């Protein structure tokens, strides 16, 4: 067990290192931060001087070494754009992103499983067909377009929901802010959560439906029906339980994707999360913020994968037998 754990953690560290290396080398192609920081009146000498102060004139290897040493201590320096510590900026923005990601994940899971079951059981009803066709739209339309359409329908035409922002927030503890406790906060959450969750919803729905159809045709379901159990018990207890195993794996992995893909939704809705922070940073060539964000997203994926691996190890005896049997 210990050997397995150490091996996985070493792998995770290696992945983080590679991500750092790739993102760091990318930064040399995104432009020159000094140009944005100094106005158009600055001379070449001014720019060279600032480059020197920021350490941008040193060899790439030295810069990378400094970056890795600092990153290992969660120290990402000062944002070139807003002159504030990057760690502060990310911590300030993280609650907004996490809240949005979790709410849209819940939305996607509940609706996805519900609709998946319905469309599997009532395969031939016109409603199922409608849902299946509509889900194609959810898969094929790009997120930003869905966001823009929702804004024009619900904010501009109907005037029911706000077009942008997070509404009024409430501070909990030292650094967490929540929009879940105010009416304007909840109203602001609806459109972005739907936009962000729609793709996952259709994915989960189609997966549940397919799994469900497969399980329903297996022998033990036929046997359960033969025993005279009610439809409800057969469908929801026997069939659904077996359907959910692959679904849960997918949901776990998708949570990371939701956080990472929040970038587009956050930009469309001016949602003050880390994704919007990242986009603004890219426009300004705010290298410290970009680096910290990419490392954070890599960490999220690495941790999720690590947890999934460990869960498999706990669940699947075959893995244990291989490692521990010697």
């Amino acid at each position, binding site marked *: 067990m210990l050997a397995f754990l150490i091996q996985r953690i070493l792998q995770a560290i290696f992945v983080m290192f590679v991500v750092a290396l790739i993102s760091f080398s990318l930064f040399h192609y995104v432009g020159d931060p000094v140009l944005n920081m100094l106005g158009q*009146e600055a001379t070449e000498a001014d720019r060279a001087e600032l480059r020197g102060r920021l350490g941008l004139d040193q060899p790439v290897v030295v810069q990378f070494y400094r970056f890795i040493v600092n990153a290992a201590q969660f120290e990402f320096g000062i944002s070139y*754009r807003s*002159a504030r*510590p990057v760690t502060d900026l990310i911590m300030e923005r993280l609650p907004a992103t996490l809240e949005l990601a979790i709410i849209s994940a819940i939305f996607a899971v509940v609706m996805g499983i519900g609709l998946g079951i319905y469309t599997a059981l009532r395969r031939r009803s016109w409603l199922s067909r409608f849902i299946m066709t509509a889900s194609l739209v959810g898969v094929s339309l790009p997120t930003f377009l869905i966001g823009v359409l929702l804004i024009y329908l619900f*904010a501009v035409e109907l005037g029911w929901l706000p077009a942008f922002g997070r509404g009024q927030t409430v501070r909990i503890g030292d650094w967490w802010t929540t929009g879940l406790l105010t009416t304007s906060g909840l109203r602001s959450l609806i459109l972005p959560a739907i936009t962000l969750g729609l793709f996952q919803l259709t994915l989960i729905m189609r997966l549940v439906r397919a799994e469900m159809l497969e399980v329903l045709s297996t022998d033990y379901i036929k046997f359960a029906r033969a025993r005279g159990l009610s439809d409800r018990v057969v469908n929801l207890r026997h069939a659904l339980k077996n359907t959910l195993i692959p679904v849960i794996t997918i949901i776990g992995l998708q949570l990371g994707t939701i956080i990472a893909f929040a970038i587009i939704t956050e930009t469309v809705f*001016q949602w003050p999360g880390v994704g*919007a922070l990242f986009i603004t940073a890219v*426009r300004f060539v705010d290298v410290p913020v970009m680096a910290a964000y990419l490392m954070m997203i890599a960490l999220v994926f690495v941790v999720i994968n690590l947890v999934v691996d460990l869960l498999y190890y706990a669940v699947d005896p075959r893995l244990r037998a291989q490692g521990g049997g010697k």
Partner: protein
Amino acid sequence: MLLKKTLLASAVIGAMLATAANAETLRWTRSADSLTMDPHSQNEGPTHSVNHQIFDTLLYQDMDVEYQPGLATEWHVKEDEPTVWVFKIREGVTFHEGQALTADDVVFSLNRARHEHADMRGLLTSISEVRATDDFTVEVETHDPNPLLPNNLTNLFIMSREWAEEHGVEEPQNYAAGEETHAVRNANGTGPFRVESREPDVRTVFVRNDEYWGIDHYPMEISRLVFTPIESASTRVAALLSGEVDFLQETPVQDIERLGNAPNIKNEQGAENRTIFLGMQMGAATLETADTDDNPFADRRVREAINLAVDATTIQTAVMRGNSEPAGMIAPPFVNGYTEEMDVVLPADLDRAQELMAEAGYGDGFRVTLQCPNDRYVNDEQICQAVVSMLARIGITVDLVAQTRSIFFAELARGEYDFYLLGWGVPTMDSEYVFNYLYHTKEDDFGTWNFTGYSDERVDELTVTMGQEVDEEARNEMIAEAWQIVHDEIVYIPLHHQMLTWSMRDDIDFKVQSENTPHFKYLRFNN
């Protein structure tokens, strides 16, 4: 005694009535937030726009871009000392936190902005010393006579020395030091609004400063100003349409018509202080991206042919949907040195252009790459596409590279481009700024934005002297001469002056300011 009391009571009631009548909130949006509240740390438009509500400058440009007294009531060059400017400081002004403004605060602020960590210092390089001669007089000494010094001070905000010392922000932020200073998110100015709360990139709330020195001089009808930046253009427009904001500062061109037709919303338009033009590398022996052994741009006839082939009027109608003013020179009408004669656009003349190409020995044309930003100016990429097809008609095959501003400007600054599109504004409202940055030979402190390789001794000489000549008439003659030279040489191909559109609730009375800096103390409500 009784009379005094009655007077006082009526004054109180009067004040209450006035406040009740003016309890108006304005919700303001534009694409980007201010970067920092530290007024000397960044030299950037949106940052200045926010700071103009909180702080005052010695003088500023009002909504018609005319110079107006701010914290300085008058300014003039000292008699017999052409290198010294004298500023009389307004008396009886207090900062939001109660400190009284004196000449010492002005000296402190100017010196703070000259600090090596301040990005504002580029505007103040001509200054050698700033001193207070009494409590309300400041003298600014420059290395050489500088007739344009006041023009460089319109975004130089005055801080309180006492406040700065109390919070340890005597120097602007040093990025390398890695610490956030108190001035990044806190501000204590003398301006028309105080900051009530600020969440960077999310929301900044201002309230009217009822002790403002100009409270009776300006409309000051807004009691509460809420600024929420919205980056996505379609969301910004949707927020105005749905009534969630009242005032939209940068209306995307594609939405101007739609907002104009919407009920209860109106557009205000005006010339922006920015001219769009094409630049060509004419100084190099060969071009990186061309298929010729020599440099076609070095031949004036080729540049003239391009000028005749690029049809600015068609760009105005087809690409800009009418929202631009075709240009013949790189200076908008309100800049000193602008003349209508020079700002004339030649009608496109393909026959003459082809003749010129043949005369120059490029009758079969040539191939070159045009570099273009795609998110910096209004419809920048589409303008370049139009240029590509227009030049194809005289045999020049143009490969277009359009990319994001951060990459474009980095490569441009490294001098990697043969042919590029650029925009230029003139914040000092004087032609000297254009010659200094765009036309002077590229060397140490001059020609920073001259990527054409153009170099003319006479223009260089005129540029330096027009920056020092105090006699207005002699100066204007130099400016006219310099314009004539660069105009005849066709150093750049001017395309158009950009137009600026602000959209707002239709009961708001507010004109577009050409510098794109709204001064909300001027805004009125029609109700």
